[in-house]
């Protein structure tokens, strides 16, 4: 019985949040890794792209809510998501046409593109704050829980409750669908194959008649979709605040690098590695241990390895360890 309780506490506080957060990070890291693979620079504006896409979705959600449209138990944001994605696609393609293209034609060094992406970060960040303000915005509606702690306790009779939020369920399901679609696209379609060819060997791809501008365009479209989905899911699960997206940049980059930059499979694995490390290291294990240990051995403190405020440090240390001992990441990525 005690073991069961410990398992439920573990699932409730570590496993489910970890999977949800990991899915969000994985989607974000996929975007970073695709830009790196095709355009060959680290896109610092990715966090703020997520914020822009999520912002558009939030605004459209509000519009739908004011019209009285809703999805019943599901959040209205899912209905607004396609429009948010369209907005993000327009935004990224416009940015590429006006800004990145110039440097691509010039064959500028990657580090220049990184600095350019910093400038774009500034602009996106400013625009987001300009339109929606710097405060927390709530856009969640619909049913809050799939399984609520109270119901769970009542139906099982266990003292430890398990709650499964709708947003967590949506996050996990959406992530699986998106990742499956992405891999199908990359492996089975002509456009996806040309993307992979371009990423592996640019010159050879050009020789075999692949149109680089088309590859770049498809990449931005996919990246915009991924970023918006990741941003909206994160916003639904936690809350929408423009500044948090900039801070997500570090765990997202850590995930992409840990998995191996340029490798989509690695980005997903990296997302979960980072998410689970963060959650396990900053979780106070007392609740779980109390059930597992015999009474005299029960811990007196919180058994929290690091305070939650140091979650950045966790992703960072993992990043550093991987970079020092396995510079191409867990899955073989690019190292230019």
């Amino acid at each position, binding site marked *: 019985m005690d073991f069961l309780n410990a398992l439920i506490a573990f699932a409730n506080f570590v496993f489910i949040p970890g999977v949800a957060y990991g899915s969000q990070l994985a989607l974000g890291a996929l975007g970073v890794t695709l830009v790196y693979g095709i355009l060959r*620079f*680290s896109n*610092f504006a990715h966090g703020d792209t997520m914020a822009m896409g999520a912002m558009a979705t939030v605004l459209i959600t509000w519009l739908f809510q004011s019209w009285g449209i809703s999805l019943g138990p599901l959040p209205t944001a899912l209905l607004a998501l396609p429009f948010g994605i369209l907005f993000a696609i327009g935004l990224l393609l416009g940015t590429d046409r006006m*800004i990145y293209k*110039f440097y691509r034609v010039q064959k500028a060094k*990657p*580090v*220049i593109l*990184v*600095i*350019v992406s*910093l*400038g*774009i*970060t*500034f*602009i*996106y*960040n*400013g*625009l987001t*704050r*300009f*339109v929606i*303000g*710097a405060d927390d915005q709530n856009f969640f509606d619909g049913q809050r829980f799939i399984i609520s702690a109270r119901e769970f306790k009542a139906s099982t009779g266990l003292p430890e409750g398990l709650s499964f939020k709708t947003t967590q369920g949506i996050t996990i399901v959406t992530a699986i669908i998106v990742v499956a679609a992405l891999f199908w696209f990359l492996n089975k379609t002509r456009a996806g194959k040309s993307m992979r060819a371009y990423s592996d060997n640019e010159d050879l791809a050009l020789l075999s008649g692949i149109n680089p501008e088309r590859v770049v365009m498809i990449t931005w479209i996919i990246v915009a979709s991924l970023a918006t989905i990741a941003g909206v899911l994160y916003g639904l699960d936690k809350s929408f605040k423009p500044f948090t997206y*900039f*801070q997500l*940049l*570090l765990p997202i*980059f*850590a995930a992409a*690098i840990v998995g191996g930059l340029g490798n989509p499979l690695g980005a997903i694995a990296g997302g979960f590695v980072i998410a689970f490390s963060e959650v396990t290291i900053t979780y106070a294990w007392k609740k779980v241990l109390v059930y597992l240990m015999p009474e005299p051995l029960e811990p007196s403190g919180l058994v929290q*390895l690091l*305070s939650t*405020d*140091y979650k*950045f*440090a966790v*992703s*960072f240390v993992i*990043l*550093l360890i991987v*970079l*020092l001992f396995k*510079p191409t990441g867990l899955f073989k990525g690019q*190292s*230019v």
Partner: protein
Amino acid sequence: MSETVRNTVLFGLMAFLIAGVVVVQGWNSALLIIAMGLISSIMALGVNLQWGFAGLFNVGIMGFVALGGLAAIVVGMPSTPGAMSAGGFIVLGALALGAATIALAIYTYRRMPPGWGRTVAMLVIIVAGFFIFRGVLDPAVDRIEDINPAQTGYLGGINPRWAEFGVDADLFMLLAWPLGGLFAAAAAWVIGKTALGLRSDYLAIATLGIAEIIIAVMKNEDWLTRGVKNVIGIPRPVPYEVTLQNDPAFVERAAGWGLSPVEASTLWVKVCYIVLFAVVLVLLMWMSQRALHSPWGRMLRAIRDNETAAEAMGKDVKARHLQVFILGSAICGIAGAMMTTMDGQLTPGTYQPLRFTFLVWVMVIVGGSGNNLGSVLGGFLIWFLWVQVEPMGLGLMNLITAGMEEGSALKEHLIESAAHMRLLTMGLVLLLVLRFSPRGLIPEK
């Protein structure tokens, strides 16, 4: 136009802008812009040393600036009575223990043959070391934070209360500036040792992370910095306004300038700071110029332009990179200490990467990377814009919304959002300069 003429014109235009501030907003705003412009220029000099000379992409400036601020409280604040004996020594011991654990792990890594045995041994050392470290540290920290938490609750600094010895202006504070540089240099050494071997994008992400961690430590380790409770009342190296207002000689002189004593004293304090900052800037500028034109500077640029060739010539690329990384970071630390000194308080919650890291980058790029004079110009110009864009944006919004009816939601929203124009403008300036004048206002020779 020869180079000297052009530079004179550019700096003349900058002076003209500041003169405009004097006319529109008064001397006080103008002096504040000059003071912060000087500090910004120093930060830009530091980053220019790393990026312009050596091509190192450091986006962790915020962390070094914050460490400089830490030095200001260490030098400026008196030590909290009883804190050292309650747990201060134990905390220092715990930190030494933590460092020893890492050193032992590195030693094991180097001495043992590769394989599972080594991995396990290292893991055991690190995990055991971590638990011992926390076991020693936590109770001591609790004891320190329990000492009068509303006022102190931290270790405090090392200020021996000069005021009691009758020293009026606390010149002792000036020591904080080199110490800030030293703190930043120490951090830079650790970072450089681990992250400098990485390629440029990775170095950027590593430094970005380190800066966030430094800020997280300063926000959460209350025993060190009081965290988000802030340290206020840091002494200053210049006289206080109140002291000046009570000084009959000063009041008389103020009357001679045609100013009220209150007004004159606030301006005078700022002038004092400006003089001090200007001395530091000139000193650093002179050193940077000497470095640029020395064989060492030429070697750095050679490494920047072609690392492989420089290495083939027998240059120690890694060591030079480490050197310049430490020097540049130290300069940022000095600037950070100066800023905290002028603010008179350390507020860890206000350090934000967009303001303290990326703004400095805009300064360096706009001014002209690789040119020290350019960094100084960029520091002044961008700081001026950063401060002035807000009132300008507000004016613009008022102009745009002038036709709209009073109290409409859109009008209110637009006027409210004018505050966010800053980031937009900075991004635009950066992109425009990168596109149309990638070498900056005063290009490298």
